[in-house]
């Protein structure tokens, strides 16, 4: 999944620093207490040169939101190097929504990579155990804010997503979507107030696969301001749509047709008169 995105993105490399950095979801493992550990990898369009980003300074912040509401403040997670690729893991005890933000810079480039998705821990009780409590995200950080969907737990194709870009929207040069299977990025237009509406298209391959299969779609904003370049990505983990392919009219017609057929069958093969 990640390699498909990175293969075309490799063409975009310029200078010593990568152009695009984004978060991908790795494997999940469940501990014996029922909590879930999710692995994340940091990918870029120049993986061969990054090698755990020797020139980059990265910090990872995360926040888990469970049924009790939004957890106050962010926690920090340690970023390690695994197989030459930056990696971090987050443990979640209960059902929660994770907001993960990675911040780094290289030369004149400032990177923010974000991801949001649901984690389903099954540990009976207790709070999530963050490695280190932290307050808020760094001030002035360029980032995307995805308005939470109240309808769906999973991000899905065909749903409309409302983003707000926190930064100087006027200086944003381009907003693109990097999608698996697409050779060229899809360009989107960012409103002056930083609002962006994006509706990912349905994917026949995703529809044919398991409902838990995800397609990684990366939203990328390039902003140039004060001689610096800000590259902000948000990874959407898109599942197939659970409702777009439902045809209620077809179903109701079949239901009614079957009922008529069954009633006809019952009447024809009656064994005694219907009325008393």
């Amino acid at each position, binding site marked *: 999944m990640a390699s498909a995105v990175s293969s075309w993105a490799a063409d975009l490399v310029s200078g010593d620093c990568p152009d695009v950095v984004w978060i991908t979801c790795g494997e999940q493992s469940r501990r014996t207490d029922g909590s879930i550990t999710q692995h994340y990898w940091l990918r870029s369009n120049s993986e061969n040169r990054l090698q755990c980003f020797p020139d980059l300074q990265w910090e990872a912040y995360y926040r888990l939101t469970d049924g009790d509401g939004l957890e106050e403040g962010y926690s920090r997670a340690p970023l390690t190097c695994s197989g030459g690729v930056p990696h971090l893991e987050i443990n979640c005890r209960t059902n929660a929504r994770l907001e993960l933000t990675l911040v780094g810079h290289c030369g004149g480039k400032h990177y923010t990579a974000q991801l949001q998705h649901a984690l389903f821990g099954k540990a009976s009780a207790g709070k999530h155990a963050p490695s280190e409590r932290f307050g808020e995200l760094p001030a002035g950080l360029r980032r995307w804010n995805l308005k939470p969907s109240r309808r769906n737990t999973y991000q899905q194709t065909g749903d409309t997503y409302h983003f707000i870009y926190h930064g100087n929207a006027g200086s944003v040069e381009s907003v693109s979507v990097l999608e698996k299977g697409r050779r060229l990025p899809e360009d989107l237009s960012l409103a002056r107030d930083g609002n962006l509406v994006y509706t990912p298209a349905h994917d026949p391959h995703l529809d044919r696969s398991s409902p838990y299969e995800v397609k990684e779609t990366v939203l990328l904003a390039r902003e140039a301001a004060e001689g610096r370049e800000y590259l902000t990505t948000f990874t959407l983990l898109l599942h197939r749509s659970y409702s777009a392919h439902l045809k209620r009219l077809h179903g109701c017609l079949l*239901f009614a047709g079957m009922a008529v057929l*069954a009633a006809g069958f019952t009447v024809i093969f009656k064994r005694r008169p219907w009325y008393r």
Partner: protein
Amino acid sequence: MVFKLRLIVQHLFFVLLTYGGRFGFHMGFALPCFSCPFVMGCGGSCYLLSLQGNWWGLQMALANWGTVMGLQALYYLGLFVLLTLALNKFWCGWICPFGTLQDWFTYLRRRLGIREAQLSWSARDRLKPVKYILLAYMIVVPLLIAHAGLHYDFHLPFCRSICPAKPLMPLFAGSTRHLALDFTNTVTLVFSILSVAIAGGMLVGMFFKERFFCLFCPMLVLIHLLRKISPVRFEKEVGACLGCGNCRRNCPMDIRDVHEQKTDKAVLSEDCMLCMTCTESCPADGVLSVRFFKWRLFSSSRDYVARRFIKPHKAGSVKVKV
């Protein structure tokens, strides 16, 4: 009157199990009745969903047996066994919301003056294995998903392709979603066609034949497996039976066993839902009785039949109700 008490309990549980979740009431995920978890805000969930879901989950990773996932599966199974032992077939006749829905259709048919459809005994005998086949279906398919690479869209096979409660019960919560055909892929389409078509056919079946779906209900099989160790007993004093046949004629499930049993005291048969209609209509004192451990909950009596079925109409005459 048992009939009226049952009516009240049935409707109380229908409301609790269909809307209870909206008010914070939830009886868990191991109920031995068709309380459909696809109803938004339901007050409890049918065990068959847990059975299919946990079974698949555990098969996917045998290592999970020693973890909290395994404990969860055992917890649901244990809870199901406890609940089943405690009330046995009362779940079917007194609590099951889908059973109550079927009873509404029966009431409507009677009000319209339409006679109940009759199934021949041979047809009924031929239908008996269906519930076992359905039970096998919901256990084998998850195994095939886990070990034979069957597509994951076959997940929850009984709920998503057979159970008529899934399309029908959410209608009471205002959702028509489960009546829709799902064109996502071939498997989902076939499953949704089966589900909607079966629901359409069952709806008519439930109208013309009392408790029609109960003839195929795999939950009955699971509950019946535990009948021997359940404190709930349905017994017949065979020596005192008059042989009038009221029990057979009044049984909504057309059970003959109670009438025909000449030797064995225990007459709780597989299709019985403990509605106690037979006990209510038995004119012999103490011949049929429903017990909880040694306590007698209700037993047949001549006086009861007289009060229930024969009511004073005018001075000097009687009106026979049935």
